[in-house]
């Protein structure tokens, strides 16, 4: 789960990482008031969950409260990569001498968190990683031991941080690690961490991703989810415990199991169609879940046919067929549907569906071909 810059920075501050004084504003007047309180010279930063805000004109400097109001009026309501700006962060402006990148993420290969630091901060770190990976220092953190003092000193030395800032840097690196651990984050990033003209360190921008699976122990973080950033159908799917991702194609897919759902998309593509979505309805395809899945898939106007692919293992094929028929009765879809049932009691299930004039298929290849043909005719 993504959270906003201001939320990330407030979490960092709670763990001892210094951040600029700032306030969130949802109107130009609030931005004016915030700027006045903060001493006049401020940065107005759009709060949207997407990168490249600066380039898109979503981050602007204001020299006084009146300018802050004007800049906020320009930014609020702005569209950045399809997202509408509803909030701005008004931060006290800092005098930047130099910029550092400091972040923690999970290294999947090594199965442990890794702290990454670069003396070239303020730029896209993935770009640095691609072009000049030697400029990024990586230090792995043993999950049973945590970040050690010597590791922090090694990092400070590697990026040639001025010695007068080492102690401060230690507090920040430790604070970031504790924030990462304490929130079950999968990314905690300060970019840039600046050395100010006054020779102190300050985290002027922050970004965090939180592990969705850990939200049960962080109800406060779960509330931070900004549903504006996802398609409405993805929100509905999450509420029904369905995994759904919208794509650009025309064949809706409803499948049990994530691996089989991806396979179904792939085979639709292999036989000349294009999948409209990924959808995993999970185990036990009951009528209620199938109906919710139908509604989500059919809310996409591009969908011209639906392919239902269910492997009946412990859930029996005839039960699945009954669930599908009940759901069809309720939702009354208007596009052609191809159902492929396989596994336990699949023949009985297919017979039930055929009696109801549904297109059925026995193999995955046959199902994909029928769905592609149906979409072309539609």
């Amino acid at each position, binding site marked *: 789960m993504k959270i906003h810059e201001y939320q990330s920075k407030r979490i960092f501050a709670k763990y001892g990482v210094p951040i600029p004084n700032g306030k969130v504003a949802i109107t130009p007047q609030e931005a004016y008031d915030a700027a006045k309180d903060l001493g006049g010279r401020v940065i107005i930063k759009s709060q949207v969950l997407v990168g490249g805000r600066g380039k898109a004109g979503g981050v602007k400097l204001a020299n006084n409260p009146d300018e802050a109001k004007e800049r906020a009026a320009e930014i609020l309501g702005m569209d950045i990569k399809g997202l509408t700006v509803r909030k701005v962060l008004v931060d006290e402006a800092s005098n930047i001498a130099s910029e550092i990148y400091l972040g923690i993420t999970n290294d999947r290969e090594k199965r442990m968190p890794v702290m990454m630091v670069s003396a070239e901060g303020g730029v896209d770190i993935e770009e640095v990683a691609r072009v000049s990976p030697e400029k990024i220092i990586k230090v792995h953190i043993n999950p049973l031991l945590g970040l050690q003092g010597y590791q922090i000193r090694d990092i400070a030395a590697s990026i040639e941080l001025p010695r007068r800032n080492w102690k401060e840097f230690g507090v920040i690196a430790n604070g970031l690690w504790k924030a990462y651990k304490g929130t079950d984050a999968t990314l905690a990033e300060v970019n840039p961490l600046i050395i100010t003209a006054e020779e102190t360190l300050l985290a002027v921008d922050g970004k965090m991703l939180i592990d969705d*699976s850990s939200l049960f122990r962080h109800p406060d973080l779960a509330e931070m989810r900004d549903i504006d950033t996802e398609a409405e159908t993805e929100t509905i799917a999450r509420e029904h415990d369905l*995994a759904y991702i919208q794509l650009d194609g025309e064949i809706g897919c409803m499948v049990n199991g*994530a*691996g*089989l759902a*991806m396979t179904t998309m792939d085979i639709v593509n292999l036989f000349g169609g294009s999948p409209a979505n990924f959808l995993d309805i999970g185990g036990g395809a009951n009528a209620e879940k199938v109906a919710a899945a139908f509604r989500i898939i059919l809310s996409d106007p591009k969908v011209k046919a639906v392919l239902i692919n269910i*492997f009946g293992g412990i859930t029996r094929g005839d039960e699945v067929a009954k669930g599908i028929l009940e759901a069809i009765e309720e939702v009354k879809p208007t596009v052609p549907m191809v159902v492929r049932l396989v596994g336990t009691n699949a023949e009985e299930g297919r017979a039930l569906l055929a009696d109801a004039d549904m297109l059925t298929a026995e193999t*995955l290849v046959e199902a994909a071909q029928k769905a592609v043909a149906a979409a072309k005719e539609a």
Partner: protein
Amino acid sequence: MSILVNKDTRLLVQGITGNEGLFHTQQMVAYGTNVVAGVTPGKGGEWVMDGKVPVFDSVKLAAEATGANASVIFVPARFAADAIFEAADAGLDLIVCITEGVPVSDMMRVRAYIDQIDTRLLGPNCPGLLTPGEAKVGIIPGNIAIPGNVGAVSRSGTLTYEVLYALKQKGMGASTCVGIGGDPVNGTNFIDVLAMFEDDPATDKVVMLGEIGGTDEEKAAEFIATKMTKPVAAFIAGQTAPPGKQMGHAGAIIQSGSGAAADKIKALEEAGVRVAKHPEELPDLLS
């Protein structure tokens, strides 16, 4: 012969009195698996399965009383790491964690600990194992596979069932089928299982089902090229998956240019693996 589980496996079930745990215990027992005990803290002294399986308060007590040597875990995600540590500290040889949605930070701690001891962990977020005709540990439907000489290893659940079923339709059976799970950090990887199949006299060929995310398939390709003599056929799911999106499984995501299906297919083909365009080709590629 087989790998990891067989008729001598003495299984205990953690979370045996929950809905999932009890249902699948019935299925496992019906298949012939030797389920010797269950564990639910606070319910020690009770019996399930019509008085045939005793319930204990802890894994240690259950293992001491029954000689259990393997555990299958059905507890909710928030208790899964604790359940794995408990089974590991009770000295069990094999732990199979079915639970989905375990926080990745928990799994990193679990893996760091498990790597230091002699216990094998399978999963989490996996369907478990099936040695047809001998034992089923987990949730793989027993009737979809017959005994045979194909070793199967997969990151997915229903896709595996699909392939086992397709093999059965052609009269081909499995030595053991192993679901390693769809999480980014898990206990057992492809190469661990491939090595066991290479050493297993009952396995003559191997089918491997991978998917997008991570580089385990690439590592498997290198292992196959350098260490394996038995033929391997594979399928990789997610060729049409967009980057940056998590496709159901927590580990199924293409990130920072890593984990795409095309890279995995290329690596496997270069290692001499026959890669299927779709799963229904697999029986032919194996025969």
